[in-house]
């Protein structure tokens, strides 16, 4: 299953970590050329970024408004490099997972491949569980490769960071994105056999991506706001790093991921190919 998945997805799998790294580099460049002003007081909390060139005036007015506020930059807060990566990765990885989930046996119904695959001696539930497992593995690998390259770049730029980050970050990122594997497969099972092959490959991906987007918007700890506004993204990431909550992604994976996978298996077992 892993072999087949790898052959199907190797191009996408190569592109995804590169995309994550490029986004991180873009943010890094922005941080190096700007001051980041962080406040948390009676007015709430927030981040403001301004270009270094004309920042003196802005810093002055910022501190007037938020006397307790902090002025950060890559130089005096090197961790912002990793915060930036974390924010981007947590926002983008679910979309990437949805892209990785495209295709597969549920979307192959119309092209004949699915019926051939189902003639092989494997139970239907095994197809879904092994695909979900393989996708989880590829998602983890995407996160791990991205983190490793990000870490190596940080070392090269002289930004020190604990090596344990290379272990915790990919795990947390994967756990945060993992529920979308189940949701993607369930949505594929809902649309399976309803459209022509081309539409059947695209529509479930589009619908699931929209769902990721809407979830980000309507959940209280929205990170998609940061997708449009990098400062909020950073703030969200900062909050996450300051108070790592492993139970949240675990719970999300447990409830959303497993439930949707069970529903997908249930639907898949009743389907005709």
């Amino acid at each position, binding site marked *: 299953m892993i*072999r*087949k998945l790898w*052959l*199907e997805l190797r191009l996408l799998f190569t592109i995804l970590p590169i995309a994550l790294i490029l986004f991180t580099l873009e943010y890094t460049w922005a941080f190096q050329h700007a001051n980041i002003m962080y406040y948390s007081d009676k007015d709430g909390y927030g981040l403001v970024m301004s270009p270094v060139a004309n920042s003196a005036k802005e810093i002055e007015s910022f501190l007037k408004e938020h006397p307790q506020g902090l002025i950060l930059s890559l130089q005096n807060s090197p961790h912002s490099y990793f915060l930036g990566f974390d924010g981007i990765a947590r926002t983008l990885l679910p979309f990437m997972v949805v892209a990785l989930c495209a295709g597969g046996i549920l979307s192959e119904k119309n*092209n*004949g*491949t699915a*019926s*051939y695959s*189902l*003639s*092989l*001696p*494997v*139970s239907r539930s095994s197809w879904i569980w092994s695909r979900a497992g393989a996708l989880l593995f590829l998602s983890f690998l995407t996160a791990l490769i991205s983190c490793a390259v990000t870490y190596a770049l940080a070392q090269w730029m002289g930004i020190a960071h604990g090596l344990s980050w290379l272990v915790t970050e990919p795990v947390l990122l994967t756990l945060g994105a993992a529920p979308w594997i189940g949701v993607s497969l369930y949505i594929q099972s809902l649309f399976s056999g309803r459209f022509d092959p081309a539409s059947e490959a695209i529509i479930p991906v589009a619908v699931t991506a929209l769902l990721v987007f809407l979830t980000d918007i309507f959940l209280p700890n929205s990170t998609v706001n940061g997708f449009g506004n990098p400062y909020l993204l950073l703030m969200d990431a900062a909050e996450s790093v300051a108070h790592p909550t492993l139970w949240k992604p675990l719970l999300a994976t447990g409830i959303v991921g497993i439930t949707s996978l069970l529903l997908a298996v249930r639907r898949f077992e*009743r389907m*005709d*190919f």
Partner: protein
Amino acid sequence: MITTSDLTKHFGKAPAVSGLTWHVPEGSIYGLLGQNGAGKSTTLRMLLGMVQPTSGTAEIAGLDIRRDSVAIRRMAGYIPDQKSIHGQLRVAQFLRFYGGFFADWSWDRAVRQLDAWQIPLKSRMKKLSKGMNAKVLLAAVFAREPRLLLLDEPTEGLDPESTEEVLSLLAGWAADGDRSIVISSHRLEEIERICDHVAFLQSGRLAISGRLEELQSSCKAIDVQNDANGTIPLDAIRQWQDVHSTVPMGNTLRIVTQRTPETVIERLRGLGLREPVIHDLNLREIYLAFCPRLKETLS
């Protein structure tokens, strides 16, 4: 090898297969014939668990198709009607993927077969012609030891030379031990050449089935000339026992009988009609007689 009892499949309200009670003896090469939409592919897919039956039961080598589906697929080989599959894989990658599911699968045997067909292992499946794709699927199946092959239009897209090779391969494979093959096909001449049993499906129902030789010896056409007054009592003849169908052909009426043509001839003589002539029927003629919808389309 295969026994079905009242096997039925409805897609929504539309019946695809209705009350199919059918038996495929072990060691037979069984041709499953019928027009498009007759239920041939659905029947094969039900046997392998790809389509869930609405009602009825079926067993393959004593294994229930619902309960023991995985075990059935382990002992059976299948070629789907759509041959262009796993297009993104190279031939070698496809073979490894397929072979990984079977303990008795032999890489060497598959490669030898593909070498004989001059199909390069490095080619992508989607770059191969339909016929070459079919050959790759067959090579993959023949590299193991299935007891049963279920083939949906196996020679579709093959050139005459390749068709010949595949048919010889199938016949040779089946002759070697207690192996059975069910071939769904439109190509009557191929079925007639290699199959020892045939079944005709029409609108999801089994129209006729049995040993090919027995069908050919029991199904007869009786041609009777109409007299000048055109007094053949067509409606009455259609009601006779053993008259399967009647086909007016100009001034001649062709009566297709099953089992006892002598009785029908006796009764025709009794009507004072001119001397009826008995013909043997080939598979094509039997097929046309038992699949009237196709016959109407052709006429």
